[in-house]
């Protein structure tokens, strides 16, 4: 009897020690149940990844195929409205500011994506998006007032020649990172950024090849090429 009481006291002591933990758990669980928007609150997940290592017939992982997409995001592409809004927002050039851009949009808008579904995206639409981006790049590179505004504070504000501004990888990365920040926004992950830097480095090198590295015109060409590549890509156009 005494032993049992001691054991009970021991259990109680253990329980008491874990009481805060218990209360915290209960709190967390109840928060999960009541607050909408919490992660994992989507509807039934019959497969909680409970150990299936991908082998056949693991028994407990039978998933209703109709629920395969539950809780997931459908990949998307921006439609023409989103694209035009994005290009305006990231370049600072309103659609109607220059007739060259406005007219281009009016003539080619039908070729831009009309649907947001990635599955509907065609090569023609991809190119229409890219070509529209190049139009904006023309203005932020070739028009001095737009260039000064857009590149203000960067190494390229005053359009130095390549032998001063693009002479090594560090300098080239500055341009690439500047564009990535401007066009893709602050939400680019480090891994994504690294991949983009690699991709764009190849383009910069190719564009500089055989060019006059003392001329600002060459800088403009590189700025334009890099701008077009990044602004016209899926990094801008997909959501």
């Amino acid at each position, binding site marked *: 009897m005494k032993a049992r009481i001691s054991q009970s006291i021991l259990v109680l002591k253990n*329980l008491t020690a874990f009481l805060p933990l218990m209360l915290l758990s209960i709190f967390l669980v109840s928060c999960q149940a009541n607050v909408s928007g919490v992660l994992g609150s989507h509807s039934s997940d019959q497969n909680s990844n409970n150990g299936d290592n991908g082998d056949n017939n693991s028994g407990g992982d039978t998933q209703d195929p109709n629920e395969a997409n539950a809780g997931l995001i459908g990949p998307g592409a921006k439609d023409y409205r989103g694209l035009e809004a994005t290009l305006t927002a990231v370049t600072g050039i309103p659609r109607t500011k220059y007739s060259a851009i406005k007219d281009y949009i009016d003539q080619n808008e039908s070729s831009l994506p*009309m649907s947001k579904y990635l599955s509907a995206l065609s090569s023609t639409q991809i190119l229409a998006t890219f070509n529209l981006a190049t139009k904006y790049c023309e203005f932020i590179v070739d028009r001095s007032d737009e260039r000064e505004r857009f590149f203000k504070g960067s190494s390229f504000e005053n359009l130095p020649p390549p032998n001063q501004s693009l002479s090594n990888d560090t300098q080239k990365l500055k341009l690439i990172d500047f564009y990535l920040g401007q066009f893709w926004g602050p939400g680019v992950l480090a891994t994504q950024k690294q991949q983009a830097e690699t991709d764009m480095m190849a383009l910069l090198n190719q564009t500089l090849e055989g060019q006059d590295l003392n001329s600002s015109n060459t800088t403009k060409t590189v700025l334009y090429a890099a701008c077009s590549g990044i602004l016209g890509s899926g990094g801008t156009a997909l959501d």
Partner: protein
Amino acid sequence: MVGLRSMSRIIVSSLLALFCLSLSVFAISHDEAMDLANHLYQRLTGIPPSQVILDQMTNDIMAGHVDKAALVAIDSSDLGFYKNTLVGMFTPLSNEDHDPQRPLSDFTATVVGLIINNKPFNQALYANVIYTPTDDLQTYFFKDPNNNNQITSIHYNGNPLTRISNTTGFLDEFGNRLDVPKVRAVLRTNGLSGDRRYEDNITYLDLQNNVPDWPREMVARSQTEVFSQLRSGRQVQAEDVAGLITSREMANANFSAGTNRVTIKNIASDFFCKDLTQLQDATAADDFVRRDVDRSPNGDSRVYQNTCRSCHAGMDGLANAFSYFDFQTNHFAYDPHALDATITDRDLQGVNGPRKIFRAFDNYPAGYRPVDNTWSNRWTTGPNASLGWRTPPSGQSVNHGKGAAQLGEVLAYTKAFSDCMATRVFKRTCLRDPTPNEATQLISIARQFEQGFSAYASYDASGKYNMRALFAQVAPMCFGGEN
């Protein structure tokens, strides 16, 4: 029998597991949360977020509040949610071709206006409202009948008028002037020349192109006031106005040619997410099927009984609500006396404006002959009872009424409307169809949508039928996903 020591170990282990499980639900890294935030923002607004907004949304997501992150995106100052997402979502509903590439119109402007001003969105089907540019953006001009209908500015309080601030007062004073035949008010955005009339939608095109913050530069006006200026001598009555249904853009789809029955098809498609073939009911009483419907097509009465009746029995009874409208060659017409008088041969040809309702009325003289805008609902019983008809708060009967406004109100309070809006929001946010379980969840969300989401009171989004709240509530269904 399990010893007490073992029992305590079991309890401790269980609690620890429970604790760890609870924590693991919230285990999302900063990078993952930021990536989600970036995608969510661009999905809801169409443009990349600023650093400040991104940080705020990331923190919300890490704290498990995807819905609040969504509201941050929706309420961001760039207005992308309104200008891109809502306009893109509702433009295909505004025209018969479901063409997504249409400029801003009174339809889409009113959708935006209702939502940005936190109005119950079901008012879109019955309210006497149209959103137009504010007075500061507009100039009122008239065609002066005393001056060869030249466009001229109106003198107000003795001064040449280029802009006014008091629309109602202005219209009161010039009401008689506006009723003079061939004088129509024009609305035009600032700084443009030429004859820009509301009838041709140029006002909204100008607004979209010239005013970056246009969602906040609109004002709610009554359709009856605005439309009255379009039909000199024919005051549009409030009972015939029904929100988006009688907007000019949708009127083009609803009231062009035909006999206005397509309005029911368009409403079903746009606001119930139902094709008309899904609403066929051959058991419905056909007492309201009009006289132009041949009861023996090709000489075979079975065709009528088995096929035609299943749509017309319900459709004709409801479509009578819109009997006074017509839309021809860009001209939106209304005539409350359209159904008066004896039917003439010209009426039978269907070429007489709103009297087109009488086209081919000699097909079956024993059929129904509308005399006014009274409507009757034959879908409250039978298979279409599943649309979830409910008496609106005003007490309006779901079975019959007079005019488009009363019908619109009944349609607005159906379950089908809320269910459809929830599904549309899901598809637009998640870019896929809901799974069966998610569809069930959406129905539950739709019921809450009708009552309001009290959790969003601090966001001014807790009212009934609040679309901002609906987007916020739906977003976690895909953007809150686990790994």
